[in-house]
């Protein structure tokens, strides 16, 4: 198996592993990009294409396809924020976010949806983002779909996804095929641990290599500690080199100067960097309204093998329950199926001892559904708030309220009904008080009586959005719809923290499309050349 990234390094790409530095460094570029995920990758490709000298800073390590051995024991500590155990302040929500070159795009499950029209309309009307119409955004999404080889998954869904199709269709609930950003995909099912066959068109395989081949510099294991400001400008980024463990600062510092700084560290880390830097925030909007698509899980057992670990992890979905009420009405949810691997399932399932072991023994016959709740539209869905711990690391406080739990109960009911319709012999909401049900009637009654509360009902998230929201005026957000900071002239935000609400769909393509637009505008402004014809 080829490893194109290692080949590029051998051919002379500029990569600095900050953990190996033995003395402080100072570097200069036209643009410093903090973060190498969906936003940072697209920005690096487009700005380097405009002839700009780019430095990409990544806090996580550089790991490439030869390192991806499809083992949870290796992938979670190596590729995820906080060893895949990042939690909200009260620990009620577990957050999966990438931390490696390529960011979450290296470890996501490849679902590639355009920002739904209902979301863009809401942003235009309720958030004043008039420029972001469905029509205006369509070419950017189309360009990124082409760039990242996004297409409807052509193979039959694996059994885990097939159960969603079967159950939903029986109940008259429409389902559809998920577009995925893959090329020559082997249909293995290990996207979440880094693609070992270079099929996933992540930033690690696409935009970052292009930027590096144009002379960009990638610095890994460098923590963006603080921005330095002078008047209304950012003048430098102070980076702390980490040791090879990716956790402890080595004591070496790297100072990066640039004309322009682009933040793309994700929707928890980008606002946190601004907070640590004491960036101006005259209207108190920074780090507020952080959204998660808080996600509920329903597990089922079938008589026949499901093997949810094998095959494209997410290939079908249903938006039926996003369309039952107005976008700002009772919270809707998107239904998908997650891949199941031993650690992921064992730590998600409730209970302990024999009750837990009994479920694990049926691992191969286990099926699961996810309900991703669309947060940030309803007046009582204000999301969370990023704060800093004493050591400067970010912490998201996201209270779960009754408006959410009402949706959680509906979601658990909907998933259980679909699973029974699909032929499940046993279904349980992942909830500490649930003992599981053998019929839909039993489930209906049981779920209606479950006490829904934090740390009783399992809530997870793989989509972090908001915190540096776009707005039409500084009173209402941190940046303009072009991602330009309202108070700091040469600072842009190019990641999921831009979104003023959640997306209502897996967000990677929303980030790609919006950032492609904004990086093109930025490239033109910085290079003095016309906006690049994308692709």
């Amino acid at each position, binding site marked *: 198996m080829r490893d194109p990234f290692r080949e590029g390094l051998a051919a002379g790409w500029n990569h600095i592993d900050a953990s190996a530095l033995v003395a402080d460094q100072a570097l200069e570029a036209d643009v410093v990009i903090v973060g190498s995920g969906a936003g940072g990758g697209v920005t690096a490709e487009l700005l380097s294409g405009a002839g700009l000298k780019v430095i990409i800073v990544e806090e996580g390590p550089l790991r490439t396809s030869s390192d991806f051995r499809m083992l949870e024991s290796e992938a979670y500590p190596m590729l995820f924020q906080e*060893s895949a155990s990042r939690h909200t302040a009260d620990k009620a929500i577990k957050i999966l976010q990438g931390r490696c070159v390529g960011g979450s795009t290296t470890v996501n499950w490849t679902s590639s949806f355009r920002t739904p029209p209902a979301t863009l309309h809401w942003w235009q009307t309720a958030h004043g983002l008039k420029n972001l119409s469905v029509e205006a955004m369509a070419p950017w999404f189309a360009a990124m779909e082409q760039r990242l080889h996004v297409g409807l998954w052509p193979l039959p869904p694996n059994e885990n996804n097939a159960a969603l199709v079967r159950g939903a269709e029986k109940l008259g609930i429409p389902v559809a095929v998920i577009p995925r950003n893959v090329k020559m995909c082997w249909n293995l099912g290990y996207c979440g641990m880094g693609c070992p066959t270079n099929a996933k068109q992540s930033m690690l395989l696409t935009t970052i290599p292009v930027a590096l081949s144009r002379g960009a510099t990638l610095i890994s294991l460098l923590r963006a500690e603080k921005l330095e400001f002078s008047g209304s400008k950012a003048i430098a980024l102070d980076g702390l080199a980490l040791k090879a463990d990716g956790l402890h600062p080595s004591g070496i510092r790297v100072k990066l100067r640039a004309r322009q700084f682009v933040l793309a560290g994700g929707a928890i880390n980008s606002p946190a960097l601004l907070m640590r830097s004491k960036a101006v925030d005259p209207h108190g909007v920074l780090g507020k309204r952080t959204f998660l698509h808080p996600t509920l899980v329903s597990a089922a057992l079938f008589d026949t093998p499901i093997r949810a670990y094998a095959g494209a992890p997410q290939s079908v979905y249903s938006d039926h329950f996003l369309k039952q009420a107005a976008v700002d009405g009772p919270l809707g949810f998107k239904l998908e199926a997650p891949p199941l691997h031993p650690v992921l399932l064992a730590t998600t399932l409730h209970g302990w001892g024999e009750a*837990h*072991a009994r479920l694990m023994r*049926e691992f191969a016959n286990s099926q699961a559904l996810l309900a991703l709740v669309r947060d940030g539209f309803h007046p009582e869905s204000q999301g969370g708030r990023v704060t800093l711990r004493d050591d400067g690391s970010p912490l998201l406080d996201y209270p779960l309220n009754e408006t959410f739990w009402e949706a959680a109960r509906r979601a658990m009911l909907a998933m259980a009904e679909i699973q029974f319709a699909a032929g499940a012999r046993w279904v349980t909401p992942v909830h*500490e008080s649930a003992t599981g049900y053998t019929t839909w009637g039993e489930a209906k009654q049981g779920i209606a009586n479950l006490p829904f509360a934090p740390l009783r009902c399992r809530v997870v998230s793989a989509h972090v959005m908001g915190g540096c929201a776009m707005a039409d005026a500084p009173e209402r957000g941190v940046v303009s719809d072009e991602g330009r900071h309202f108070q700091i002239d040469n600072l842009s935000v190019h990641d999921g923290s831009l979104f003023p609400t959640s997306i209502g769909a897996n967000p990677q393509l929303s980030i790609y499309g919006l950032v492609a637009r904004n990086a093109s505008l930025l490239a033109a402004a910085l290079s003095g050349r016309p906006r690049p014809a994308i692709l």
Partner: protein
Amino acid sequence: MTTRREFLKTGVAGALLLNVAGCTRPAQGDGRTVVLTALIPVFLDGALPPAGATRPELITRTVAGVDKAIAGLSLATQKEVGELFDLLSFTPTRMIVAGVWSTWPEASPEAIGKFLESWRNSRFDLLKSGYAALRDLVFSAWYARPDTWTAIGYPGPPKVE
């Protein structure tokens, strides 16, 4: 219902004792190993083979797996996990906050099970999250190991050449 007494016991006294536990920090690795060696067989009842030659070895390997997992957590989380094990290691807090009256090696599986249930169903988020942290650590250490996969019918990752 939470009684006033319970709240004082866990809220105020717990916080005070947590401080004391932190100040009189026991030898960290040792305290943690003792607690884990007692908890693991209860968490993994039904997964761990019944008494036999391999059982102690598997428990030791799981403790080592938890140690490794903790070492990979963010430094802030490592500190919190350290406090959790301090609280469980320190005799007064073990008794009052965990309700385990004998030492960990002498605690019966029933007493440990009762402790897990009391934290899992606690009125206090702090204790519920303590239970969740222990659960995550033990189950990830166990199911991360290929030798546990046959029992659950997981073939392991496919070969990619």
